[in-house]
């Protein structure tokens, strides 16, 4: 996937999402509250994020690294 295609897709999803908000009551949130729907990384991904932050220059916007470490080698 090219960079341009990813940016277009990202913008499209944001526009679609933000133009169709509805108010939900608590009893209507059974799917939203499913544990697979959590809007963050899984606990099991913790160490994956660590090695990605060492091997790649980009990091952040991902609730990633929470400690130090030089990431040498």
């Amino acid at each position, binding site marked *: 996937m090219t960079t341009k295609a990813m940016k277009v897709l990202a913008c499209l999803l944001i526009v679609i999402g933000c133009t169709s908000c509805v108010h939900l009551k608590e009893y209507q949130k059974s799917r939203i509250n499913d544990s697979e729907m959590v809007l*963050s990384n899984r606990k099991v991904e913790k160490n994956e994020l660590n090695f990605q932050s060492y091997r790649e220059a980009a990091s952040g916007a991902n609730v990633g690294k929470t400690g130090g470490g030089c990431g040498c080698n």
Partner: protein
Amino acid sequence: MICRLNAHAQVKQDSASNKPSSSLYNSPSQDSAKYNPRKLKLDEVDFVSSYYSQNGDHSAVTGGIGTEKVTDFANSIALNFVWTNKHQNKNTLAVGLGFDAHTAASQAYVSKTGASSPNGTRLYPSLDWTVENAKTGNTFGVGTYYSTEYNYQSLGADLHFSEKTDDKNGEFSAKLQGYFDHVTLIYPSEFNPMAIDISSSNYGGGGHNHGNDDNNGSSPRETYSAAFGYTQIINSRLQIAFLADVVGQNGYLSLPFHRVYFTTGKDTIEKLPSSRFKLPLGFRLNYFWGDNIILRSYYRYYLDNWGIRSNTANLEVAYKVSPFFSISPFYRFYNQSAARYFAPYGEHSPTDQYYTSNYEYAKFSSQFFGVGFRIAPPNGVFGWQGLHELEIRYGHYTQTTDLVSDVVSLSLGFK
């Protein structure tokens, strides 16, 4: 209804389920919390263990050539204590401890002869306190963490809060963080002959018996970041999160044992600017498709003042075989442009102001794919009531720099 029995890790659901009136299911432990609201109890214990194995041929220690073979065994445990105060606000104290043990083949070549120790360890405790308002669901907290390994010490602290919208369908969060690190100045042996004379066989970053620690000294590195997030429920199947970090670093941002070879054939150590500004912007979008499929997506655009631009896209499809068992194949694509200070082995000019041959700053793309399994039955995993959740995940990673790696992780949640 059944899905809600196991919906324990979701941010919005957390705040909803903490209110007895809106909870569809109360466990025995929740009942006892109501009976004695101030009592401190151990609510959850999370354990994560990973084994990581990597190979490549562009080590920064040897100037952008040479083995990048690494293995890392990482383990962490987090204990979450909860209690309620006199205003019925929920307090959570999270106590964490992590321990990593690694071997890095290139680390041996901090010494020109390859005689340095290739082994190392890292220890990282953490502490976080969060209080959640019982009426509004808003939270406030502080955290601190420490990380230590032979050649690097890091001390961090943060302040975080979140505030829900009036209809509880949106939430704004912010986290202010500061890291105060020290890089031990361990130079390649040819630039520090005294070190080799004193500890000839074990001089290097991360191992044991390194000898003349006191002679190395250290340099500070500071990192300040502000992380902002906004989550919004779009409809009963779709929710989205917008994420933005602003990060500033200053101090010694190079690593002293990274070699650089000039066009003249002479080598020196990596030299990078003493400040860096990073701006990652991202969003997550999760969609519950039908009754069994959940699409989890993530995109991030990143830029910094070293000239790096990057895109990250991730898609995970969680298929619920049953309400308590899911299989989640995933795919992640990443690309980045090179930092303006990067050049491969032997291509830097001696007149360059800054130089590095660390391939972390090279132009490349990477792919990461694999599958995860999650089991969370109401009567406990394998019938053991205390073990409420088990996750296993495997991933294979490839870079266009020819670096390849595999990682397998296990996560256990105890109540």
